[in-house]
């Protein structure tokens, strides 16, 4: 069999998948790029070529800048909290205690739930009239009157971050727990004999084993948090007063609520670019830390 035929056969075998990929990813992507240079509406006009107008309009608009800040705030705060809580949970679940395996299984639950279910659940908890959070805080005396946690611009974003944390810390915990179990028993024992305190043991002995896997978790979570849509859409739709509007929500509003397909497409591409930059930066970081260890 000639190598030529082997190559041809390889392409033939990949062809069905390639066709599907081109149809559902390639073509829409190319079409989005095309759209972004037009003033097309979602319904009706096909739109004419407007050059970089959409990009300039979007990037210089106050909406975009404010949304970028909100998105960054959401991503940084929720991912940071998830990392800390996740590692703490993993350290706890790595201890010997009665009922540990049950707790380990239970911990996965929030992450395993569909986001929409999770979001609905938290909307009930935050409900201004009969929500559990209001009830709990009033009953222990921390709160005088019920508040609308999702209805006030001052608390809505925090409330969303809490919900996101609850859903996603299990993923970090799971990864950290796996990494913890890879720490050789002898190394921990050696550090005990060497006189390391619990903190020093974590900092100097355990952490180097966690760093690599946690970096992966950080990358995954940051990119996901940056693109967050469903959780916020179900809970606040970007409100109140756009205080929880993230980039994905803005894209949706631009393209579908305001039916401006052209500028919506340009915005979507800007978000894609930002996420790509993040991904590339993190990939470089991972490669660097892998090389160091």
């Amino acid at each position, binding site marked *: 069999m000639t190598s030529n035929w082997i190559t041809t056969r390889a392409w033939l075998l990949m062809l069905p998948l390639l066709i599907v990929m081109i149809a559902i990813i390639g073509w829409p992507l190319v079409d989005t790029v095309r759209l972004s240079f037009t003033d097309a509406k979602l319904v009706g006009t096909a739109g004419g070529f407007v050059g970089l107008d959409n990009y300039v309009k979007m990037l210089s608009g106050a909406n975009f800048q404010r949304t970028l800040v909100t998105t960054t705030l959401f991503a940084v705060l929720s991912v940071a909290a998830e990392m800390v809580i996740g590692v703490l949970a993993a350290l706890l679940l790595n201890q010997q205690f009665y009922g540990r395996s049950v707790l380990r299984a239970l911990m996965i639950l929030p992450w395993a739930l569909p986001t929409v279910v999770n979001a609905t659940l938290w909307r009930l908890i935050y409900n201004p009239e009969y929500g559990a959070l209001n009830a709990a805080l009033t009953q222990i005396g921390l709160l005088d009157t019920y508040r609308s946690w999702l209805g006030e611009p001052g608390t809505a974003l925090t409330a969303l971050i809490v919900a996101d944390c609850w859903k996603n810390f299990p993923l970090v915990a799971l990864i950290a727990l796996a990494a913890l179990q890879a720490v*050789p028993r*002898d*190394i921990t*024992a*050696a*550090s*005990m*004999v*060497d*006189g*390391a*305190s619990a903190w*020093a043991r974590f900092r*100097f*002995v355990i952490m*180097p084993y966690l760093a690599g896997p946690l970096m992966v978790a950080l990358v995954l979570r940051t990119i996901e948090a940056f693109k967050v849509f469903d959780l916020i859409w179900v809970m606040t739709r970007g409100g109140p007063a756009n205080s929880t509007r993230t980039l994905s929500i803005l894209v949706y509003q631009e393209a579908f609520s305001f039916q401006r397909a052209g500028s919506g497409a340009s915005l979507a591409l800007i978000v894609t670019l930002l996420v790509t930059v993040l991904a590339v930066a993190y990939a470089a970081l991972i490669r660097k830390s892998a090389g160091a*260890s």
Partner: protein
Amino acid sequence: MSALELIDIRKRYGVIETLRGIDLSLASGEFLVLLGSSGCGKSTLLNIIAGLAEATEGDVRIGDRSVTGVHPKDRDIAMVFQSYALYPNMSVARNIGFGLEMRKVPAAERTDAVRKTAKILQIENLLERKPSELSGGQRQRVAIGRALVRDPQIFLFDEPLSNLDAKLRMEMRTELKRLHLMLGTTIVYVTHDQIEAMTLATRIAVMRDGQIEQLATPDEIYNHPATRYVASFVGSPPMNMLEATVAEGIAHIDGSLSGFALPADIREKAGQARDVVIGIRPESLSLAPAGDAALGIDAMVEVVELTGPELVVTSTIGSQRLTASLPPKSAVTAGMAQRFAIDAGALHIFDKATGRRL
């Protein structure tokens, strides 16, 4: 003052008792080897001494101070692990100095101590490297250095040489012996390798099923084993164990027609015992002409193996096996009947039922 004292140490996991009352006392400067096959409880005992495991009952005393319930770091011990357990992210220098660092020893003093230790172990040129850049033998030296630098009362070694290849193992064995002679430290060393035990120890504790079978000097262990188990565990090839029946001073080897008259002192020790096990080290046997009148035994030669320095001859006496280590040029052929002379002074006799030396 004893450096280490173990008083009736017991360890139970549920209903399983892995240590069943260990008592021993170690003088300062002794090199004690805990010898036994896997699962005999030797590593558990070491971990209990280190404080990494807790005894169910009993007391550990280090330098006349009870350390039961005391954290490993406060026991004044250092430990070398089988896997070396070096911190992979730290340089060799930091690995060695980590114990001092954690004890808040000033940096300058620490650097000094690390250099001195590295010099003793001849690893000064490796101080800046990471453990992943070291060979097995070098890692082992770093692990020993980490223990050495702290100058503790007792060193604990958990099978430290078992991950090394044969040649390196021999080198490191000599190295450890040299260190012990040079520094006069007190050492507890766990191994299943009887050669390591014989060469390194000032005393050996042979362990079996969570108990000390015999605690004695290597010479005593080899030449006067207290039980059949100790006798067969130490020595290579292992001691021949011939089941025999004694009647009127004559030992009849079970399953064969041969037998021999026991020397007077052994006959006395055997007393009224009838069912015994006679232990003969392979090197206590030599070739004898057929019909020789001196103490000896007839056997059928099955296999002859030349190992280099010796000729290992495996024969059968009825259903039992007899191994002899002979000089390499001995005239012996497989398939032939052969009489072996026995060194009368090297005959061991054990009670068949209890396994104890008579």
